[in-house]
């Protein structure tokens, strides 16, 4: 690097841009090879087809819902949807009030009910449990009809094995808790026993009737368990507080009964009580102590995450929240695809028209515009892919529209820049100087105007809902891409081109021909140049007031004419600075 100057700086900038693009491409390529990313952008629901439900939470009795409760609601819905075997569902909150559920395909009525239902949490004692994850018992090995259990007496409490009758046993054997899962209801009679699974472990249970309903949970939290000496151990635990008097009393009764069984045999499944959410067991701890004051702590093989998740579920379980479907939109995959194709087609046609127009307007410079647009498009595309991979950003129809709209605004940066360069040429500067000066001025304008766009997209992104968000996002993204391109490609490219013979000497097709631009060389000697139009026509002088430049180039005859004009019009009062130029476009047609 011997020389430093505009040329080598321009070259270096272009190299940097190439390096950035290559790095991003390699990152995406690596992601594709690793199977984490795809070359195609992730598509939103309106392009891919599927169902979008907007749910408004309803809290019994209470008025408003806190954002914390809404987050819990989202995590519960997510589990319900995941549990029902729908993959790739997207659940998010919107506007701090609503929950948006997007599912590929169509939900069954049952799934819809499940999503809407309020959390159904309760505590049931365990009657029987399998040791390991279990599927359905094979037909051949099932208990024959005559060996099925028959209750000998009415059950005395919820843990009583007399709850298990023939029908329940059949159901227990036929249920599978490992994939493929057996369809199970999500709401059941609290006064009846229940066959249930623990999704995390695959263990199968027979549970007794509900003894402590979820609404009796006051609060739950999680933290590191305090040891016997009060020092913190490094074991995570979940603290559960029950409401007094009902919750505490009921819990005391349960733990007394179960703890007796635990003292007799720590491995007795009947010493355990199951915490059941939507009829699935989320945890089934053994009762290791009698809880008299409604303050219990659950320990086990918890990590911080699993402790937090259990405490969240317990908190949520105490919340009688249900959802109302505000709107449900189904979009068929074919219609979405059709829309996308049309959008792309419109974008390409629009781009083609812009290309033709800029070639017509700027001749060879038009190619710089086209290349700049292509690079801006490439950067936008890579950004969308990378965001889809990292943030799960999905391109929606509104986003596609945002990109198409951005074509015009991106091209505007180049137009502003080229026009400034032309203005400098008109002042009689050489091309190299004109590019530098024009850029210095255009840079300010471009930055100020793009700031407005970026501000708009930020505001829209943060206050808006639904499809407006996707639109705002792409609008902001393209504005940033545009800035990168104009600073790192368009200007350096023009700096280099200005030094070529074709542009530097102002070839007629370069779009920067000083002759066509009516440049007035700063050197006003005998070689003064005039364009053919600049003949000695009379009306030339009429605009003397508005034209300092023109004024200095006027002949004396023209000046006199102008003066006569002024006398005819009469001098206007000072202060009303009225331009006295006249619109002579009629004469020029």
């Amino acid at each position, binding site marked *: 690097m011997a020389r430093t100057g505009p040329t080598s700086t321009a070259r270096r900038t272009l190299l940097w841009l190439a390096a950035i693009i290559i790095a991003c491409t390699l990152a995406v390529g690596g992601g594709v090879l690793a199977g984490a990313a795809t070359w195609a952008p992730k598509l939103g629901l309106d392009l891919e087809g599927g169902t979008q439900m907007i749910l408004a939470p309803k809290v019994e009795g209470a008025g408003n819902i806190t954002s914390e409760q809404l987050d819990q609601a989202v995590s519960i819905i997510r589990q319900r949807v995941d549990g029902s075997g729908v993959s790739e569902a997207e659940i998010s909150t919107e506007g701090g009030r609503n929950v948006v559920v997007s599912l590929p395909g169509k939900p069954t009525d049952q799934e819809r009910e499940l999503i809407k239902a309020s959390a159904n949490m309760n505590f049931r004692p365990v009657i029987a449990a399998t040791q390991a994850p279990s599927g359905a018992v094979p037909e051949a090995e099932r208990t024959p009809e005559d060996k099925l259990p028959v209750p000998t007496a009415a059950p005395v409490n919820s843990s009583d094995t007399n709850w298990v009758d023939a029908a329940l046993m059949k159901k227990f054997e036929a249920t599978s808790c490992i994939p493929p899962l057996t369809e199970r209801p999500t709401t059941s009679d609290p006064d009846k026993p229940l066959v249930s699974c623990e999704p995390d472990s695959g263990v199968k249970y027979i549970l007794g009737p509900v003894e402590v309903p979820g609404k009796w949970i006051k609060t739950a939290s999680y933290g590191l368990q305090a040891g016997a000496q009060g020092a913190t151990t490094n074991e995570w635990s979940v603290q559960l507080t029950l409401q007094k008097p009902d919750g505490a009393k009921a819990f005391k009764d349960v733990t007394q009964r179960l703890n007796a069984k635990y003292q007799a045999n720590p491995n007795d499944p009947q010493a355990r009580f199951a915490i059941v959410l939507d009829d699935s067991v989320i945890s089934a701890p053994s009762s290791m102590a009698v809880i008299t004051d409604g303050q219990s702590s659950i320990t086990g093989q918890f990590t911080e995450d699993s402790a937090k998740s259990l405490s969240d579920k317990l908190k949520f379980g105490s919340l009688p929240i249900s959802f109302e479907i505000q709107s449900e939109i189904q979009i068929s995959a074919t219609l979405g695809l059709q829309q996308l194709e049309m959008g792309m087609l419109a974008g390409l046609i629009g781009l083609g028209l812009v290309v033709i127009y800029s070639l017509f307007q700027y001749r060879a410079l038009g190619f710089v515009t086209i290349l700049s647009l292509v690079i801006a498009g490439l950067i936008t595309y890579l950004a969308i892919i990378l965001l889809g991979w990292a943030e799960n950003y999905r391109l929606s129809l509104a986003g596609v529209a945002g990109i198409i*709209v951005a074509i015009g605004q991106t091209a505007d940066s180049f137009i502003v820049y080229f026009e400034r360069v032309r203005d400098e040429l008109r002042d009689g500067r050489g091309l190299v100087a004109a590019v530098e000066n024009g850029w210095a001025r255009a840079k300010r304008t471009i930055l100020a105007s793009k700031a407005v*766009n970026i501000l708009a997209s930020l505001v829209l992104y943060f206050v808006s809902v639904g499809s407006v968000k996707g639109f705002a996002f792409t609008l902001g993204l393209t504005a940033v891409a545009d800035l990168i391109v104009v600073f790192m490609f368009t200007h350096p490219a023009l700096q280099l081109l200005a030094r070529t013979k074709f542009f530097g000497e102002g070839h007629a097709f370069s779009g920067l021909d000083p002759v066509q631009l009516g440049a007035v060389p700063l050197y006003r000697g005998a070689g003064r140049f005039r364009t053919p139009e600049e003949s000695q026509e009379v009306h030339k002088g009429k605009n003397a007031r*508005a034209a300092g430049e023109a004024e200095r180039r006027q002949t004396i005859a023209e000046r006199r004419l102008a*003066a006569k004009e002024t006398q005819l019009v009469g001098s206007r009062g*000072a202060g009303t600075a009225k331009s006295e130029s006249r619109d002579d476009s009629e004469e020029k047609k």
Partner: protein
Amino acid sequence: MKSFATFGNELYTGERSYEFVGKRKIWFGIAGIAVLLSILFPLFGGGYNFGIEFRGGSQFTISQVAHTDVLIGEEAVAKAEPGTVAVVTNIASDTMQVQTDRLSDDATLKVKDALKAAYGVTEDHITSTFVGPTWGQDVSRQAIIGFFVFVLLATVLMALYFRTWRMSIAAIVGLLVVMVVTAGVYGASNFEVTPSAIIGFLTILSYSLYDTVVVFDKIRENTVDITKSTRRTFAQEVNLAVNQTLVRSINTTMVAVLPVGSILFIGALLLGAGTLRDLSLALFIGIIVSTFSTIFVAAPMYSWLREHEPELVKQAKKVQQREATETAVAL
């Protein structure tokens, strides 16, 4: 017919000059009438035509139909759910849209099956949607909040950048004209107002101010040392700046409108009602109105707001004195 470059040259030197500032009474008058009509039309012309997202209801879209007969759909709905009024439209070459009042889940399934049978399409080619009336309200409420937040922040941003709050005022006045007139076109033409149209509307917000900032930046450049110069008065300088950026304004408008126009064309021709069409319609109107508003309303407004400042009045006098003496010398 001269070449466009020559046109640009003449505008740049001031040889050719359009009186954006000088004839501002005319331009303000036209803008005022347009704004008035835009407000009156929706008031007396039946108001806006709100889409289903604002009214609430059920909507079915059937694509790839064999016959685009409206009657088929109406009969199918009437049979499946007697008493339901259905509005059936052919929205694209092979796509039908059926809108009804909000149906229950069961009724929705029934109507859907009836339509499927009537038009002879498979499950893939029919979609059902129901929209609560609050959905559209949510979108527009957030949009209005966004509008105010953006205008406030943009005003501050421009005032800081241009170092004069008068430019902000002039730009916002221009913006309001754009908003009202675009809304007026919607009201007068009975185009459907959908959430997508609202998005388009918000984009015009940013486009309109964007366009104004580009022109105002040239004005700033031209008037930066105005008090030290006796070449032109403030108003003349503003006018020259608008003229000098006129080529850019024309080019930018063309380049911005071409892609939007092609979406509009494709959307209306092949796709029927939908996000793309609604969006591009608002943009198409808005971009054109924005360009006019910048050069005919915002720029003259700025000149009007400032030319009575004592310093600028003094400067204008100096300019006239110089012109008078030069004329005398020339004679």
